[in-house]
């Protein structure tokens, strides 16, 4: 009997200001010159109104209506929570209310939604996981049991670190390159440590996340009835449906019928005797691992390639990534907490994502999310800021 594990990623990056080469070395208040607070606030409020607030309300109603049988999980990034605290505290209250129902689980990740899991040493990664842990503890008085790294980036080294940090489970992509012929609808364990791995069923997840409103897709129009049938006919222990929270009302607009789909999904699923809902913690508790997962090289849930080429696929991205790591070493020696925090905000993976030059299919997705007209603009802007921060790390 497959359990449906519905999990949402909730994240907003802190976008950058236009920063020219002529600004390097001439900045005083780093925070206000690097980050475009006006744009960030505007986007956050727009997405909150289109997605976060209405979706939270609907999910709360559904959980109550089905008496806790409808169960979901969230991952909230640190930057997202800071947005809430600065601009919309009632949104945090709404998440608290959801959590109090007992049908909602919270997932750990790096506070800054960063690529620190790919650094040469994992000390920064560990710091950011602990920052996230403290934040969840402070707001929800809860200690997450399952971890998911930025964009589901996963390799054996990260799995070991997460096991060492005491987590019971980790989430990543159900990519063929680690599964081979096997199904993502089971729980696995890393080849090197004792931990459970939940694998995203990317076909069923992307049916909602990407294809929901695609008229040329044979599954169109996707109804809750049809979707529940597909899942009921699926084989396995657990169906992991992981997607961006912004799917609801932002990537898929209200007009596409996405909210109607969500409203009817619990009742349609629960009509099937062989289906139920589980949170991520419940899924790792309930099911045994059926096999090993070996990922010597990092995989992720991004783009067609499902590796880290989305962030480190061209030389511009690699040049920025190397600068970023170098500045970190300098700042840590210096011990300047303000600059360290700014450096961490710059680690958010989105900044590198905007510099991706990947071809049409994926490139179109990138362009949709990017504040820059072309990736080259993203590179110059980000690199100029890194150069300014580097000067400060060296001289202040």
């Amino acid at each position, binding site marked *: 009997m497959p359990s449906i594990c519905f999990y949402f990623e909730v994240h907003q990056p802190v976008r950058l200001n236009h920063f020219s*080469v002529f600004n390097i070395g001439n900045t005083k208040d780093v925070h206000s010159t690097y980050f475009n607070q006006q744009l960030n606030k505007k986007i956050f409020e727009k997405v909150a109104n289109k997605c976060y607030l209405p979706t939270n309300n609907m999910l709360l109603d559904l959980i109550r209506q089905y008496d806790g049988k409808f169960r979901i999980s969230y991952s909230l990034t640190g930057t997202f929570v800071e947005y809430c605290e600065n601009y919309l505290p009632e949104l945090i209250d709404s998440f608290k209310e959801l959590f109090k129902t007992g049908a909602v689980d919270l997932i750990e990740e790096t506070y800054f939604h960063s690529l620190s899991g790919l650094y040469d040493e994992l000390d920064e990664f560990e710091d950011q996981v602990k920052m996230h842990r403290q934040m969840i503890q402070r707001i929800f008085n809860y200690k997450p049991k399952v971890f998911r790294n930025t964009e589901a980036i996963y390799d054996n080294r990260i799995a070991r670190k997460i096991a060492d940090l005491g987590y019971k489970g980790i989430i990543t992509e159900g990519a063929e390159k680690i599964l081979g012929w096997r199904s993502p609808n089971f729980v696995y364990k890393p080849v090197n440590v004792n931990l459970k791995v939940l694998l995203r069923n990317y076909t069923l997840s992307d049916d909602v996340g990407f294809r929901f409103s695609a008229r040329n897709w044979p599954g169109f129009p996707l109804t809750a009835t049809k979707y529940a049938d597909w899942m009921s006919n699926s084989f396995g222990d657990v169906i992991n449906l992981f997607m961006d929270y912004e799917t609801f009302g932002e990537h898929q607009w209200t007009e596409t019928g996405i909210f109607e789909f969500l409203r009817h999904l619990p009742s349609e699923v629960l009509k099937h005797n062989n289906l139920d809902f589980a949170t991520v913690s419940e899924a790792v508790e309930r099911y045994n691992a059926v096999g090993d997962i070996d990922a010597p090289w990092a995989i992720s849930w991004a783009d067609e390639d499902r590796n880290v080429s989305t962030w480190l696929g*061209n*030389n511009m991205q*690699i040049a920025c990534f190397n600068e970023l790591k170098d500045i970190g070493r300098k700042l840590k020696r210096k011990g300047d907490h303000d600059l360290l925090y700014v450096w961490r905000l710059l680690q958010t993976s989105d900044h590198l994502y905007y510099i991706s030059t990947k071809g049409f299919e994926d490139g179109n997705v990138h362009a949709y999310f990017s504040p820059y007209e*072309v990736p*080259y603009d993203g590179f110059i802007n980000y690199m100029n800021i890194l150069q300014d921060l580097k000067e400060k790390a060296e001289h202040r």
Partner: protein
Amino acid sequence: MKIAMIGWEYPPFKVGGLGTHCYGLTHGLADKNVQIDFYMPKLKQKVKSDNKNINIIEVGEAEVHPYDRPDDKELGGKFFDAVYRYNDLLIKRVRGTYDLIHCHDWLTMKAATALKEKLGIPLILTVHSTEYDRSGWIYPNQWFIDIEREGMQKADRIIAVSEFTKRVVVEKYGINPDKITVVHNAVYPIGDGEKRNLVLFLGRLTIQKGPEFFLKTAKKVLDYEDARFVIAGIGDMMPRLIEQAVHLGISNKVIFTGKLTEEEVKHIYKISSIYVMPSVSEPFGITALEAISAGTPTIVSKSAGVSEVLKNCFKVDFWDTDEMANKIIALLRYDSLHDTMRQSSKREIQLFTWDRVAERTLQVYRGLA
């Protein structure tokens, strides 16, 4: 299908995008079995056809350049005389059985509209630029505008080289948008060369092309990074620009090449590491495609038609010299940026073929036949 195409210049003797376009278009059409009689003014050197479907017919004598804007009244008078003479001769010389007439820009419009009536066949007009572009939108000359409007009105179909140009034709000349088709230009790739530390401007030195913004940008770049700035081309602004370079204190870093041959143009594209096109008004801007095809990352003005279709380039406002300098400095500093842009843009312009231009043009012809 047999057509009469009326042009003004043709490689190897050309000064602008018009000649390049006519060469690419006629060859693209010839490959699709269209027979073309290409009429053009007789030059000092004889132009030869290299394709059995293209027949070049030289008419009269006119050693004038289509996009010069002579300040001198006497010179101007000679220029207009030459244009009139060419048009008059065309009306007499063009005969035979054609399916349609295709002409380019205002220079041949008088003849083309007269021939349309005389032969009773459809007229297609390609608009490569308008008087508004050539004047940089400062005091456009009504005399040209009237000729252009009349030609546009009488043409059965108009091909515009960009959406930008289509908008001008609709808004400034009052032409029905339904008879205008946009066909973006293409390029014959030039190929990479060994790069030197050169930043290139290439074009006529006129207000339209914005060379003074290039010099202002050069000054800003040179405060931070070392490079040579090449101004390739001739035009009425040359003396002013030389003065400006001296005034900015950068004359030792600026090279004026004067007029270049076709081979020299290719060479300069190959050895330049950055191409800048800061045009005030640019209906298309084939030079951007040429530079990229030579492996040179390119910065184009947002007001250039090419910016509608080219993704892998920088787009800036022509007056925003700070931003232009910001981009040039980054391209000079970061190999990662330069390499990535060079590779991606070269890949992208493989889509810009004359075969595609000919195919779209042929669709316009067929719509009339």
